[in-house]
């Protein structure tokens, strides 16, 4: 009693499709977060045959948030792979593929479902390079939609980033703007180190300008476009074009523009207080700064971008200027990113501080039910309250 079409017709047709020759788009576009990541993935898939995506429902469905929308249609089911429903399996096989020279980008459907893969990520992925004394690299990216605010059910709104940041060997990052989302996903893929790429799912629909010539693959696509244009002009005299199709794998390093994964960025300059945020709270922090400005307070917003490594220099430089610091994240504050920053800032800026470093974040409770999640999340009001407390010292 089997249906006539039990096998996935959609998957098989996609599998038969040959990778598209369509050029990777360049130029500046206004894109929502999710589409910016999609464009970054497209650039990487188009720029390096060794890049492949794997995960649950990322093919014909395009992922439950549509972040991989259209990618299987363009690149085929060998490059954009719907896996069995097994996170440990996804990460474990990704490690094997990476050891074989591939660059797997794994999607974990929701934050709360990363834990079946926790063992592979923390005991295996994080330690391969170290154990092999640098002989082995495992360039695996793990994309995780995380954070709350979308009215979801249990296990769909968590912020487990510090569980990974506490593990040496992993890079843990989270973009705060569509532009960074686009650039950072590419740098994560080109990074020889494993990267946990936390996507603020509550911001997926928020738009921003994205320069598609940014990022290692975007830059390459833009350069190729230029070469192609030049050759088009010169086509009559010189019809040779092969150079465009010869592709060295892209890898990033300090030397060739490995920037967003290592450095925080000042998202808004200010003089009276430093507000440190990342991922979903960057937008909140910017709104707080806006609101505070109307009351005459000048807030500098630092977007960390990366939690591990933590760019404390940028934070310290800002605090030396403003003398006050508030850290905002959705994850519980207890033993969290804010605690780390507070300790570091206290050590390095003790004599510059006018107030203790304050934290605004989640409580030491499981993520609560949707109806009261806004009381749990660091809201505009709660951040403003901390800003007032800091200024009152």
């Amino acid at each position, binding site marked *: *009693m*089997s*249906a*006539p*079409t*039990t*096998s*996935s*017709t*959609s*998957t*098989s047709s996609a*599998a038969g499709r040959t990778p598209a020759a369509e050029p990777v788009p360049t130029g500046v576009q206004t894109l929502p977060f999710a589409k910016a990541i999609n464009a970054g993935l497209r650039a990487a898939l188009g720029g390096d045959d060794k890049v*492949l995506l794997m995960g*649950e*429902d990322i*093919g*014909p*469905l*395009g992922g*439950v948030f549509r972040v991989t929308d259209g990618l299987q249609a363009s690149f085929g*089911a*060998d490059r954009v*792979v*719907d*896996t*069995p*429903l*097994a996170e*440990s*399996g996804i990460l474990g096989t990704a490690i094997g*593929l990476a050891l074989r020279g591939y660059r797997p980008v794994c999607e974990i459907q929701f934050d*709360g*479902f990363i*834990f*079946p893969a926790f063992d592979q990520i923390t005991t295996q992925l994080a330690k391969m390079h170290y154990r092999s004394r640098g002989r082995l690299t495992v360039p695996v990216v793990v994309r995780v939609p995380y954070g709350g605010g979308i*009215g*979801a*059910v*249990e*296990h*769909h709104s968590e912020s487990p980033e510090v569980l990974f940041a506490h593990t040496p060997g992993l890079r843990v990052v989270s973009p705060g703007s569509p532009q960074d989302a686009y650039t950072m996903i590419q740098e994560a893929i080109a990074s020889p180190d494993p990267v946990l790429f936390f996507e603020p799912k509550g911001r997926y629909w928020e738009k921003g300008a994205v320069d598609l010539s940014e990022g290692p693959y975007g830059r390459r696509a833009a350069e190729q476009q230029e070469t192609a244009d030049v050759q088009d002009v010169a086509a009559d005299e010189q019809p040779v074009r092969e150079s465009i199709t010869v592709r060295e794998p892209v890898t990033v390093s300090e030397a060739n523009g490995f920037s967003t994964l290592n450095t925080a960025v000042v998202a808004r300059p200010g003089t009276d207080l430093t507000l440190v945020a990342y991922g979903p709270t960057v937008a909140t922090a910017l709104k707080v700064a806006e609101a505070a400005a109307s009351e005459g307070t000048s807030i500098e917003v630092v977007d960390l971008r990366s939690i591990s490594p933590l760019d404390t220099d940028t934070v310290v430089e800002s605090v030396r200027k403003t003398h006050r610091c508030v850290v905002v994240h959705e994850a519980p504050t*207890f033993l969290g990113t804010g605690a780390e920053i507070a300790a570091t800032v206290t050590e390095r800026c003790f004599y510059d501080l006018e107030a203790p470093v304050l934290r605004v974040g989640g*409580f*030491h*409770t*499981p993520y*609560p*039910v*949707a*109806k*009261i999640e806004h*009381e*749990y999340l660091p*809201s505009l*009001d*709660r951040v403003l*309250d901390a800003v007032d407390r800091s200024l009152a010292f």
Partner: protein
Amino acid sequence: MTAPIEPTEALQTDEDAPVQLVAPDGSRVSDDRNAPYRARTSHLGTEELRGLYRDMVLVRRFDTEATALQRQGELALFAPLLGQEAAQIGSGRALAPQDVAFPSYREHGVAHTRGLDLAEILRLFRGVDHGGWDSEAHNFHLYTLVIGSHSLHATGYAMGVQRDGLVGTGDPERDTAVITYFGDGATSQGDVSEALGFAAVNNAPVVLFCQNNQWAISVPTSTQSRVPLYRRGAGFGVPSVRVDGNDVLACYAVTAEALERARSGGGPTFIEAVTYRMGAHTTSDDPTRYRTRAEEDYWRDRDPIARLHALLVAEGAWDDEAAAALEAESEALGERIRTSVRALGKPAAASMFDHVYATDHQVVSRESAWFESYESSFTDQGGHR
């Protein structure tokens, strides 16, 4: 890497045909293979068959109502069971009162057979509760959203039942079995394989009931397995059966046999109920992106409720009076679901600090106290945000 797109059917043999007692047209099926199962349903008379039909109609009504409530913005999300009524009612009705069920998140039909008020379940989907029903009162554990996890809990629970000497005593009031429900996608999780292993080597009184509804969100069963799922049991030494999941009598009989084996000390059974998820995976899902109309039509013709209806009619066990009574009952259920869901208020924000630990915890107490004073600072000012 080649995508695993080979259809599972290619590797199926005649032996893999599911146990069936009623054909899609409502006629009874008698063959050598189903003889022992037929025997297990011989005591089901008109009243019992009507009861199974009533169960299925009521949970479908609940399902329709919940889906509508989600569309009206009253629920954050809903996971419909549409199409899986026979698998759930058949297996659920085979349970003895003392048996314990460990569901995933779509087992509304099983919940109904356990006497749980279906409105309780919607608290979870409305976002006012993480699923805080009294699982011991109903021998129906909390829903589990992390795929496959609870198959191990069920197995461990069954190991406990066995240690407590509640297996093989011969006393039908005492002997206890455990059943766990999961989907075809879940069989790919390590936890489910580990559950099969633990169940087998411990001879645990557990039934692992897989509802193969053909899809794990957008991914067909052929992406999970190259062989029919029920065959996975064999490698672990767990007796396994494949049953027509849209045939409520077959589901009842196969589960009843497995539960009895478990209660009597015969150990675990793996059941694959071949069924179909007729609706979306959840209300956030769009099935048109991954499946065809032809496939949906094929399965609509195998609707489990229509099948039992045809049987009741053919056997003269159904009439207008019964139909009207059931219609009134399901109308009343729908009304009650609507009103009770709309009446569910927002929990107090401070309740998020309750029950994080069973004993005092300084971090939580401190944060809770801070939150209280923070909240009251707004009311003190006479307003709220």
